[in-house]
Every structure is written in structure tokens, then in C-alpha cells.
């Protein structure tokens, strides 16, 4: 054997994560709190980055780390039930050990391009997951950012993820405006009713803001068009792309679009950067 050979660290081998809290957010979204078996945060990350969670024997899947990096105790994941891994995660109980590896991908430029800016966050449904990390990061370093507007919509009130935190923390903060909307009229809901793209246009934001958009592809498409109508340039708007992923480190080829790998060069892109990609995302 080669005496000088040293086995490198392997990114694909995960560590153990223990689920210490499960919160039911909506009929199909739960938020899981994850730490290592000795009660620590598994690794550091920046807002927008993701992690691979897995249930051995069931599979591995990529999720945005929805907690803010400023939370030094644990990580949180808001997960929508939609297949093998996510079904399994939804039926497990507190104390369950799963695997975790990461962090993967780039992050929102919170300390560079976003610094000193007025921020406009726009999310639809589970799209709040990656944004929650940025929002809470901005709230933590409040003096580094200008005014903050949050537009968040979902099908119904029951489908708003993390409604409690929105009501009791975001809405009570100074300098933060939260605009909630649901798709259809509902008894007991006196807030706005209508789709996110239309609501954004109605609200008519001033164009000196930096906007971040996350949600279903169709919502992103129409909201971006709406923002452009309001006079926003694509260079001011950020979003995340979601493609099938396996390795998370730019090697398995699955998330390749043009010369970019979304797992490594993304998931965060500025909308003008997305225009440069071949139309295949």
C-alpha cells in the first residue's frame, strides 16, 4: 500500500442528526428542529444554503435550512410532504435520528449586495422556507438593512407556514411591514385575498428595493413580470432554483443547467443571471 496515502474527508458521508422538535405548520408542512446527538448544531451555514437529510433505506433529499445562521443552537427545516423521504419524515417522532450533510450551495449576498438596502421579500407557500432564514438574519442585524417588506401568500390561512412567528414576531417589529394574502375568501380572514403576483402590483413598491422571490415556478414567473412592470430591473431581484439533486457538490450531474450546477453555483441566482442560462430549469 502507498504509505503516503491518506483517505480524504468524504462529503457524501453524512453525520447523525437528532430531531428534537416537530412543529405542525400546515396540513402538509412540518418544521423539524435538528441537532447532533450531543445537542450541537451540525454545521454553520449562511441564509439560502441547503442540507441533505436522509432516512437510511428510504432515501436522501435536499432542503433549505430555514433557521437563521444567527441561531447557534440548532437548525430547522420546513418540509412539505410529497414523496418517500418527506412522507417518512412527516410520520416520525421527536428523538428520531436521521442523517444530515451540508451546507450546500451559495447563499443570499446578505453581507454584500443586500447591505444597507431596503428589502422586499416575496414568498408563496413552502417558498417561505429559504426566505425565513434571510428574514431572521436581517432582523438580527437590523441596523445593517433599511426598511423590510414581506409579502407572503398561500392557498388558505391553514397553509401559511410558521404563522405564529409571523404574527408574534415579524408583525410586531418596527420597520417591518408584513402583507399576507390567501387565494380564496375564508371565514374569519379579514386580510387580503388574491394571488401573490397581483397583490405585489397592488401594493406598488418603490423601485429602490432589493427583492427576493421564492415559491412555485408559476408564481415566480408572474411576480417577476409584475415587479418589472413596477420598474424593477432584473439585477434587483433574486430567487432560488429548484432542480433534482443527489450529490449536492456538483459531481453527479443531475442539477446541471448550461455550465452551471444549481447545487453548487446556486440555488440563489439574480434574475439577470438566470436569463443567461439555457431555458431548462
Amino acid at each position, binding site marked *: *500500500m*502507498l504509505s503516503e*496515502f491518506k*483517505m*480524504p*474527508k*468524504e*462529503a*457524501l*458521508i*453524512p*453525520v*447523525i442528526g437528532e430531531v428534537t422538535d416537530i412543529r405542525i405548520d400546515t396540513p402538509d408542512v412540518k418544521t423539524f428542529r435538528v441537532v447532533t446527538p450531543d445537542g450541537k448544531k451540525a454545521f454553520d451555514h449562511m441564509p439560502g444554503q441547503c442540507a441533505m437529510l*436522509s432516512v*437510511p*433505506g*428510504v*432515501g*436522501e433529499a435536499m432542503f433549505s435550512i430555514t433557521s437563521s445562521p444567527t441561531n447557534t443552537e440548532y437548525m430547522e427545516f420546513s418540509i412539505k410532504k*410529497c*414523496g418517500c423521504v418527506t412522507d417518512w419524515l412527516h410520520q416520525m*417522532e421527536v*428523538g*428520531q*435520528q*436521521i*442523517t444530515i450533510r451540508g451546507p450546500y450551495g451559495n447563499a443570499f449576498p446578505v453581507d454584500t449586495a443586500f447591505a444597507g438596502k431596503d428589502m422586499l421579500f416575496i414568498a408563496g407557500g413552502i417558498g417561505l422556507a429559504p426566505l425565513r432564514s434571510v428574514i431572521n438574519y436581517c432582523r438580527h442585524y437590523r441596523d445593517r438593512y433599511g426598511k423590510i417588506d414581506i409579502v407572503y401568500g398561500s392557498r388558505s390561512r391553514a397553509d401559511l407556514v410558521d404563522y405564529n412567528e409571523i404574527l408574534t414576531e415579524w408583525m410586531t417589529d418596527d420597520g417591518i411591514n408584513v402583507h399576507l394574502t390567501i387565494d380564496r375568501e375564508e371565514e374569519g380572514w379579514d386580510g387580503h385575498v388574491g394571488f401573490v403576483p397581483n397583490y405585489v402590483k397592488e401594493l406598488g413598491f418603490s423601485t429602490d428595493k432589493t427583492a427576493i422571490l421564492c415559491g*412555485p*415556478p408559476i408564481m415566480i414567473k408572474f411576480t417577476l413580470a409584475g415587479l418589472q412592470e413596477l420598474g424593477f430591473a432584473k439585477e434587483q431581484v433574486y430567487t432560488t432554483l*429548484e*432542480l*433534482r439533486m*443527489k*450529490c449536492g*457538490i456538483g*459531481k*453527479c*450531474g*443531475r*442539477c*446541471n*443547467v*448550461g*455550465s452551471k450546477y444549481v447545487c453548487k453555483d446556486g440555488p440563489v441566482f439574480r434574475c439577470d443571471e438566470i436569463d443567461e442560462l*439555457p431555458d*431548462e*430549469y
Partner: protein
Amino acid sequence: MRKCALANKNALLAAMAKTAKLYVPTDGADEKSRDVNSRLAGAYYAEWKDGAELSKKLNTTRSPKDFFFPQTENMMTFKMTGKKLEIFDTRREHENFILFGVKACDVRSFTVLDNVFLTDPVDSYYANRRAHGTIVSMACTKPAGTCFCRTFGIDAADPEGDVVCWEDAEWIYLTAKTEKGEKLMAALADVTEECADDAADAVKTLVNERLDKLPLADLKSDAFGGGKTDTFFNDPAWNELSEACLGCGTCTFVCPTCQCYDIKDFNTGREVIRFRCWDSCMYSDFTMMAHGTNRPNHVQRFRQRFMHKLVYYPENNGGLFSCVGCGRCLSRCPISMNIVKVMKKLGGNKNAE
């Protein structure tokens, strides 16, 4: 440079086999064999046995990428007891081995794979095998009609490798090109003798003359490369080119540079084995997600394979193409589609003369 009489080739290989496990190109077609590979008609790499006949075929049916990036490979195991989980790192240091008779195109394919697997974060499974493998390459004295390595600047007369060999009617000439190669050459001192550094020049000239006459000798690659996405992505020719493709993935599986993989779990009942296996961007479920796939039709999947080899990969790797012109996809595709047809059709008059 050193040489060894062809008559003593067995002794040369025996000396190599003394230093590490030696693999050589061997002819298959042994119908009674229990090893699937050796039942096939083509050549394949098999462990050398004393007195074994080496294949005279130009190249192996499957590329030697298996040695570094096997078709399936176990990565780790898990044990679950109640809510508790254990992770076992099953990696072990790989044994030393030598690949003998690797052709210039396949040697270059290792560089193409290195750029993917050895860049940070390093793929330790690949790095482990790569660190323990020594490549002994062989100049191609009989290149085939499907060869076009020159299109990508690969020199079949003077291949890369740890040790490079040339054969004429009497001698096999050897020279080391790397430190690993020098180590191996030192172990071969007793079965080789010193010769002039230009001893293999006549073979090189012969190979070059034959390369000049190949049917694909004029195929150019300069229309392609990084930054050409817009030039080719929306070319209507993709429709016609992909029309007959079955999406069988044969081209990706025989290709020495295709590197897409899948990660899967297998529950044995006692433990869960996480393994990886080759995958293909030609498959319809490759990019399938809950809200659909970003490449719903086959034109897009077909285009992905060739755009990756000819544009995206070079863009990320200093202009290096992710095709080495080995010709395997030319002879294996059931509908006779291949990268040469794609390059001719798309490159057309965009190639410099």
C-alpha cells in the same frame, strides 16, 4: 527509454504483476465462463494470469473508467435500532493495481474525470482508486475507422500515462512519464534493457501516418467549446438528430468520460447499504421532481449529453472537451447515432477549415 523483446512480454508482465495486481485487455467470448464480461465478444480488462494471451483488438468494449469509477460502488452502511442510528464508514484503502495497454483516448478520459472528482470537495472513493492505480499506456499502431482522438488534440502516437509503451515487430519500448511510472520502471530493470531515446520514433511515425488516413481525420472541434451555448442550444437540428434516439443510455455507459451517477439505498434486512451507480442524462426520470421535470422531452435530454461534452464541460474546464474520440458510441449505438454525426451537423461550416 528501455525496451524488452516481444518474445519476453510474458516475463515483462510477470515482473509488473509482482509489484501490484495487473489488469490487461483480454478477449472475451468464453461462453462457459461464469464471469459475465468474459462471455461477451469484445475485449475487456481482466486480471493477468501467467501466459495469458492479450487481446489484439484495438480497445475494450467497456472503457476502463470502471477501475476508478465503478458501475456500482458501496459507499457506507447504516444500522437503525428503534430511533437510534449508526453510520459506518466502509471505505478501505484500495489495493495497488496496474492497468496495462490503455489507449491514448482512455488515458485522457482519466484527466476528464479527475477534473470532476478530484476538485474540491474531493470524491474520496475515486481519489482512493486513482492514487493506487498506475497507468501503462500503449501507442495505437492500428487505429480504427471510428477513432477521432486527434479532433480533441490527443496524440495516439505518444500517449499520456505513468509509463508509455510502443510496440514494433520485435520490441516493446517503455518510458516513464511520472514518478509512479519511474517506480514501476525500476521494478522492471531486470526484464528490460536501455535503448536510445528515439528508439520508438519509427513506430510514432507509422502511427501518425495511419492517423492521417483515418476517415474521421478531418473532423474539427473548434466550432465548439465554452461560451457557445447560445450558438447551438436552439439549433433546430437537435430535433432531427434526436428523433430516432431510443434513450437507451448505451452511449453513456460505454463512454469513458460520462460521469453522472445516482445514489441509492439497499436494505439487506440487517443493515442499509448506501451505494452509487452510473446514471444517464438520457433517461427520462433523471431530473424528475415533484412538480415535473425540467427536461420533459427527449430532444432536451439528447441535447444535454452533447452540449455537456462539447460546450458546458469545456466552459468549466479550460477548454478541455469531455469527449476523447474513442469511438465506442459510434460502434455501440443501436440506431447509429453518435457524437460525430452531431458535430458534423451542428458544427457544419462553423468549423474552421
